[in-house]
């Protein structure tokens, strides 16, 4: 199957349709994505600053890493899952989006960056574990990591500004919003949101 047909089948899948048809699901999935990325970024910064010798310098690197990395990975799994769910709702558009592609490339690069760390400074941790900063290879990886993750956030935000979701193009269907969770609320006036929310 070629990629376009595959992406189309993703878009047509039950779960993608379900998300598109819901007023709540996409915003909640996107919010969860932001929670996940805030945790990924917030915890990676702690590790990178430790490697650079800027913060947590009095603690051993191993201790800092063992406290934090499990949370980074858990949060990363959350962003990957929510990211995939957002992707399948409009797969073709995301696939052709320049910022989406750049973001995916940066994610791959940050993975390679991690491998570089394991092959360089990561091999000699026992030598510098208690030192206030990592050897220069470790510092370079940390600096690259900070630049890449901030760029990933930039790209993520730009994807929101340059893609339009089909579900938002149509006026929100009546009777699927917060009012339905409250009993006895009179008929709502049904807002109109013909453009992507980020585009106003």
């Amino acid at each position, binding site marked *: 199957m070629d990629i376009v047909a595959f992406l189309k089948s993703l878009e047509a899948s039950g779960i993608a349709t379900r998300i598109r048809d819901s007023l709540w699901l996409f915003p909640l999935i996107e919010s969860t994505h932001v929670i996940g990325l805030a945790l990924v970024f917030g915890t990676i910064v702690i590790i990178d600053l430790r490697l650079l010798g800027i913060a947590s310098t009095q603690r051993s690197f191993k201790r800092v890493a063992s406290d934090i990395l499990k949370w980074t990975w858990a949060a990363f799994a959350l962003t990957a899952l929510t990211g995939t769910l957002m992707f399948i709702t409009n797969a073709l558009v995301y696939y052709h989006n320049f910022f989406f592609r750049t973001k995916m490339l940066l994610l791959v690069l940050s993975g390679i960056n991690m491998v570089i760390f394991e092959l360089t400074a990561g091999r000699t941790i026992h030598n510098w574990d208690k030192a206030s900063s990592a050897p220069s290879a470790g510092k370079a990886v940390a600096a690259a990591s900070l630049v890449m993750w901030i760029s990933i956030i930039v790209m993520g935000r730009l994807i929101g500004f340059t893609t339009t979701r089909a579900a938002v193009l149509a006026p929100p269907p009546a009777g699927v919003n*917060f009012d339905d969770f409250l009993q006895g609320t009179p008929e709502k006036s049904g807002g109109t949101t013909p453009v992507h929310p980020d585009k106003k």
Partner: protein
Amino acid sequence: MKQFAKWLSTTFLSVLIQRHNSWVIPTIQTIHIVGIGVVLGSVLMIDLRVLGWAGMDQTLRQTTTRFGPWLTAALYVQLATGVLMVIGEPVRELVTFSFWLKMFFVGVGTLFAAIFQITLRKHERKWEETLVNRGSIKWLAVFTLLIWVCIIILGRLIAYDHVWGSWSPATKA
């Protein structure tokens, strides 16, 4: 509020931001997201220490000395970028239910952080020896983290305020 938002959108700074909308707003939003990353990361580390799940080689005071200033600094960044976003897009921000609920949670979250840091400084021994082991304090740590999670959700929902139905002032327009 709508009138205030409309007036705000005619002010010099607002017009300036609107004129360079294509890059200014995404840039400010990105800084705001980087900032919430630092906020959530810092809150997480302090809360995990209170829960006894991380940083147990450090005292509570040491953990707070490490992350407290970053949390405070990041909150100032959030305030500054947040104010700029409100000035740049007053109607989009102020005429929403999500924004005001978020501001309430931000107030509560910031108050908790401030009370914690101040009382820890004043009653260091009591915190280290007894308070940190109390179940109620551990629940408070979980609750604090959840407040910031809600803040993130509400922040994103500003763009999708119609999900609140008739609670959203935007849909009454």
